[in-house]
């Protein structure tokens, strides 16, 4: 696929949504529902919460198609950011309520929110990372292949296998970066357009 084809799809989708085309909303859902629902589920850890976030995110896009600016990056990462923000907000709300009823400390709450947040970003980074890096990580982590075996499996040099494992983990490690406090808007770390 030419590199700008997804961008064209994004722009076209936005125009169709703005035009009020119900069929476009269905296509948007078909393409992104599993991403949105999966991220929300990773943060919240429960099905009905994830369903609710999914409903909110698509409603937001449908009601505010102009809120997305194709120049700012792919629709996919915009949706991931929207989902992430809403899911984390919801987690914080439910956890704060639990805290008010005497469950845990504010530090535990923050830790839990941070952990859930990083896990969701990591999921996104893995799916969005270049295939060669993902393939190398999968071989080493899930199939327990060492880097020499991975190199042979992938048909690359051992140097290259080492490079891919390191680079893949470097990308993944950005999921643990804490967003700076009081950040007003913009993409959450990990959902950037670089990937």
């Amino acid at each position, binding site marked *: 696929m030419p590199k700008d084809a997804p961008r064209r799809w994004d722009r076209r989708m936005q125009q169709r949504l703005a*035009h*009020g*085309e*119900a*069929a*476009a*909303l*269905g*296509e948007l*859902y*078909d393409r992104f*529902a*599993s991403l949105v*629902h*999966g991220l929300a*589920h990773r943060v919240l850890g429960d*099905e009905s919460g994830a*369903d609710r976030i*999914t*409903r909110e995110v*698509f*409603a937001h896009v*449908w*009601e505010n198609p102009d809120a997305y600016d194709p120049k700012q990056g792919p629709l996919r990462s915009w949706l991931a950011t929207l989902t992430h923000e809403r899911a984390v907000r919801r987690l914080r709300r439910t956890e704060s309520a639990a805290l008010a009823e005497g469950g845990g400390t504010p530090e535990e709450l923050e830790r839990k929110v941070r952990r859930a947040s*990083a*896990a969701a970003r*990591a999921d996104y980074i*893995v799916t969005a990372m270049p295939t060669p890096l993902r393939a190398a*990580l999968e071989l*080493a*982590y*899930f199939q327990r*292949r*060492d*880097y*020499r075996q*991975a190199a042979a499996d992938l048909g690359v040099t051992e*140097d290259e*296998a*080492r*490079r*891919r*494992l*390191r*680079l*893949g*983990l*470097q990308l*993944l*490690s950005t*999921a*643990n970066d804490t967003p700076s406090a009081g950040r007003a808007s913009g993409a959450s770390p990990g959902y950037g357009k670089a990937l």
Partner: protein
Amino acid sequence: MTGSDLPEPPPAPLALDHPVLKSLLGAWALAACSPAEATAVEEHLGECGPCAEEALRLRDAVGLLHAEESLDLDPGLRTRVLESCLGRRPPRIPVPRWAVPYDAESARLDALFRDIGNSEWHAPVRLRWFEEGGQVSRKTTVAGVIGHLLAVDGMVAVALGLGDPLGPETKDPQLPAERTEAYWKASYFPPTRAVRGPWRDQTHELVRTVSFAGDGSGLMPVPYGTAPEGGEGAGQRIELPLRDAMVDRAFECWIHAADIADAVAYPYDPPSPRHLHRMIDLAARMLPGTLAGRRRSGLAAPSRDLVAAGAPGRSLRLEIEGLGGGEWFIPLDSPGATASAEREVAHVALDGVEFCRLAAGHIPPEEAAAGQDGDREAIRDVLFSAASLSRL
């Protein structure tokens, strides 16, 4: 590994330079290097601050990797999400009600493909339908079934002025079975998962096009081929109005999705009650015509009464139980006759999904009816006609 009883010798110390050690950090964090290399890296980390920092970061990152959970999205969520959106902001270009089941069923089938592996695309599937006296079948694969759906949906695409998936050279109008065979034959290699993209694009394009064409386009005729030589009504064009064709395509999509799900051992639910109701209604409306066809071919008992078009005639009450069910009166003597409770001579009660499976030729008519009373011949003719609605 030596396989002997001797303890492994401690790894000989490796002398590696800084760039190599640094390049090993990822493999080290994943425990994917040799024991000697791991020792060398660990010794280096005690001496090199930047490498130690990166090693920690990468090791933490490994903790974020986990097996991808196959989260089955509840297929009902799509309808709930879309309806809630459309309730908040009514669409300027809605999807016609008669096209909604097709939109939903194609999305449901596509979601099934998210979960199945490469090899499962080649799992054998036996397509079954009912002809003349009994059930027939044809062997294909999961990918072959999608090719079949692509080829037959293509009839609607052609009627709407979209491209024919069989290519621009295809002569018009062919029967669904002929189109399918043509599609299967056109490629030297058996179909693969590559068929998913074109099939899915076409389903989206169909929904989009009928939405723009609007509700009124529902009456537009869709050619379903020409009746074959030597058979009933030879040479006649078979047509369905677009709104029925879209329900027919939704029905087939579900039936074949269930065939595929069976073949790869996945659970697959029936359509939502509202959509199921439309499918049952279409089959019930087509029954009188099919019954008349079987009668002309001598496969059904002759009419008892001559009934003028629009006049009341003997009727069978088809009671479909379960969600999406209802009651239909089927005229027995002529498709043009009016069916009514007053002229009821027979009654059949069937579960909705069971009725659809009968109409898909998946269960023999002899085994279908859960409850029946009244004219035995009428019941038999209607059940056999229902099975005859099926085709490849």
